[in-house]
């Protein structure tokens, strides 16, 4: 969804249009994120974290998969250096997101870059990149990422609080954590527009399956690198 950026609109109106464009693009993704947040809240308590820490983590770390891994490892009395390393490697993919959105945020003052970096999660990135790439290059397009990011941020910590409060009332057999996988299935399909992108996705998936035994969740990075390289190599098969 790309908001209309009518040149006759005032800057304020354009900012608002971008912000709400981001909010409304992000909202459907919350259907996958909220159940995942609930599951995280429950899992945090089960792993022996106090309620305050489980909720605080959703604001401090703000990265779903890495938080799941954090609490699991914490529950197993893993050394803190191993936890920090595993969380970092799990989130290393965000470096690539940072690189992908950076050209669209070049002109911004530092405080904007800090806020938008904090909000740059999988789902906010997925919602905003198409707008950056295909939408009009207006001076206010970063408000789109702000809208998407704030929406996801709110949904994430609110659902974590709900998970902590509801706790055991959520049966594990519901498999609510599957919702985030379904989100990524949609995001994968929607990110594929060319043959080479399909090649990248298939290669990354195969690599993820083959390298899953690597320590520190390095398989995510291995899959990303192999997928990207295979995509580049397969470019010659794209229709022009």
């Amino acid at each position, binding site marked *: 969804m790309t908001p209309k950026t009518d040149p006759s609109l005032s800057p304020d109106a354009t900012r608002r249009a971008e912000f709400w464009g981001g909010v409304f693009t992000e909202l459907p993704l919350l259907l996958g994120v909220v159940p995942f947040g609930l599951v995280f809240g429950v899992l945090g308590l089960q792993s022996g974290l106090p309620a305050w820490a489980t909720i605080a983590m959703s604001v401090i770390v703000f990265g779903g998969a890495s938080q799941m891994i954090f609490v699991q490892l914490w529950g197993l009395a893993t050394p803190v250096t191993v936890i920090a390393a595993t969380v970092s490697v799990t989130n290393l*993919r965000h470096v690539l997101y940072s690189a992908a959105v950076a050209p669209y945020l070049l002109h911004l003052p530092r405080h904007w870059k800090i806020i938008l970096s904090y909000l740059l999660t999988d789902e906010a990135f997925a919602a905003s990149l198409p707008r950056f790439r295909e939408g009009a290059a207006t001076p206010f397009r970063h408000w789109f990422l702000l809208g998407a990011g704030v929406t996801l941020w709110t949904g994430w910590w609110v659902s974590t609080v709900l998970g902590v409060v509801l706790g055991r009332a959520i049966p594990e057999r519901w498999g609510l954590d599957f919702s985030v996988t379904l989100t990524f299935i949609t995001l994968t399909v929607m990110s594929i527009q060319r043959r080479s992108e399909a090649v990248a996705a298939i290669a990354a998936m195969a690599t993820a399956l083959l390298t899953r035994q690597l320590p520190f969740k390095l398989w995510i990075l291995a899959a990303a690198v192999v997928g990207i390289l295979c*995509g580049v190599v397969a470019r010659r098969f794209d229709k022009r």
Partner: protein
Amino acid sequence: MMTLLILMIVCGVLTFLMRFSFIATSRFFPQSSRFYDLLRYVPPAIFAALIAPDIFWAHGETFAVMENPRLIAAAVAFVVAFFFRNVLLTIAVGMLVLWGVS
């Protein structure tokens, strides 16, 4: 508990720095179009990779193709996503299939 709080802050700062990395520094080095060609493949590669462990490993342990409700639900969700390109519909159908077959 102090250890826990410090560990969370360390993980939060590291995660932030990774998200900030290129956004903070990219104006200091030249924009190469070849580099941005690579980045085109970031979304399909990473999103596809993140799906894999959840659908091919039953209970996170054993590789399972047969009798794996998540793989069946994921396959149906993939078809729905392909034809309708709609997140809400894909999640709804995927969860219903998961509950139906398990």
